[in-house]
């Protein structure tokens, strides 16, 4: 890259017009790319955050509702019939999967009770894993942006400072008026990186804790339900 071009691209930026747009516009294209990328990351982070918040709230409410129905004394067959019609999530899915396995074992041409207990537990484990996977989806994006965002921003800053130093060398003028705009626009990249990374890290920690909590709740329900089914199996025999 020609130093004269750098000088021309940086020098017109005087300290008088340091608006956000001019900061972006006078930056080197690599810095621009970094800035745009980080902005997109920030948008993505907030989209995931909104999505996850809604999802976790909905899941928690569904769990509360299901637990209420489950412990209300309603017969399990009835509950199964009402739930199996529509696709369900989390605790409902767990219950439906276990019940389906139960029914299949008893309503088939030959009853296979021998390994029923083990089968039901396996089915519930798989369902829990699937549910957790659903809750955890895209959380890795938050983690990645949270950890890599500052570095990407720093890269833009370093690049911007490099070009501004090139412009200093080209103009043979070290006055602050020449140096400052380049450094300001370079630091802008780091600022955007931090703007993207800080919410990402915070949301990641929050959602990771939430996933943990819900997974434990599912495990607890699975243990409880498998105990109930185990007693039923023993009674039937």
């Amino acid at each position, binding site marked *: 890259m020609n130093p004269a071009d750098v000088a021309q691209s940086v020098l017109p930026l005087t*300290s*008088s*017009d*340091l*608006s*956000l*747009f001019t900061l972006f516009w006078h930056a080197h294209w690599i810095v621009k790319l970094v800035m745009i990328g980080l*902005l997109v990351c*920030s*948008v*993505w*982070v*907030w*989209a*995931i*955050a*909104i*999505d996850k918040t*809604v*999802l976790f709230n909905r899941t928690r409410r569904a769990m509360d509702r299901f637990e209420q129905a489950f412990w209300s004394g309603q017969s399990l067959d009835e509950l199964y019939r009402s739930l199996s019609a529509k696709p369900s999530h989390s605790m409902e899915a767990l219950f439906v999967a276990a019940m389906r396995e139960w029914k299949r074992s008893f309503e088939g041409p030959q009853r296979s009770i021998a390994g029923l207990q083990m089968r039901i537990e396996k089915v519930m484990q798989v369902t829990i894993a699937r549910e957790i996977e659903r809750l955890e989806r895209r959380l890795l994006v938050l983690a990645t942006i949270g950890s890599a965002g500052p570095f990407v921003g720093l890269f833009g800053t370093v690049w911007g400072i490099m070009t501004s130093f090139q412009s200093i060398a080209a103009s043979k003028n070290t*006055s*602050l008026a020449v140096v400052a705009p380049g450094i*300001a626009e370079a630091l802008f990249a780091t600022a955007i990186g931090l703007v993207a990374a800080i919410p990402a890290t915070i949301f990641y920690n929050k959602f990771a804790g939430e996933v943990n909590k819900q997974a434990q709740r599912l495990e607890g329900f699975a243990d409880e339900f498998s105990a109930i089914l185990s007693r039923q199996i023993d009674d039937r025999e």
Partner: protein
Amino acid sequence: MQMRTASMISTGLHAAVLLFAVVTFTGKSLEATPVEALPVDLLSEKEFSEMTKGVKDAPKPDKPKPLVEKIDTPKPVEQQAPKIDTKKEIAPTAEKPPEPKPPEPKKEAKAEPEKPAQETPKPDPIAEKLKQPDKPKQETKTEQPKKPDKPEKKPPKFDASKIAALLDKRDPTRNAATGSELSSSPSLGTASGLAAQLSQSEIDALRARLMALWNPPVGAQDANSVQITIRIRFKRDGTLEIGPQVLTSGSGVQFNAMRDSAVRAVLVGQPYTMLRPDHYDSWKEIDFTFDTKEMFHDIPVRRPL
């Protein structure tokens, strides 16, 4: 899908924040006046030593201005001599004119008793009373001539030595005065200036010559740094006036060998033609140090500088 609405919300949020930032984020220009550049010259040692050399054909300044350290309008020294007040001297004479007044009431007093005396020979108590005040008036009359004496006792003291003390109020330690202009006239070398001294090239030449001739005894290089300072007195033609004096004291075979080698070097080296005769005063006497450690980097000690 759920994710799509979430990303749309997020995008809208970012757009709003960016718009707000674009509107509000403006760099206020800091008002900083450009600093005047401070010119700095880099001088070599030789240039520096030649810088203060006086020039004999320098143009003479038409009026040597006084050396001042501050620019200021010259203040006239205040005349603080005690004012001789002539009014006080006049005062006693001015008081005199009222003196003739007292006799007037006396005449009235005297005139009044005459009239009752014509009408009634009875002694008038009023007349008597009027006569009585006459006595104190006469007393005052006698006292008044003494008054002018009192002011004459205090003649205005005019002490010449006191006036001198008042006049010379400047601090005796100050060595420069204020004036209307800084003296910019080039001087022909100040007392402390390095005028007409040996230039660095002359010193270098002398040192190179002595170092080339100096043949320190074998083993001296390995020993600890031994310095031998020798005072050399030159004649005008560059030869030695007297034999080199060894200023460093020491003992031992090695020291003696070293000292002898240094003396030998000085003796062999003459005449030292690299020293210009027109600077004779500055190289008339030179203390030169032979150092084993800094054999090739030593700096001669110059005496009469």
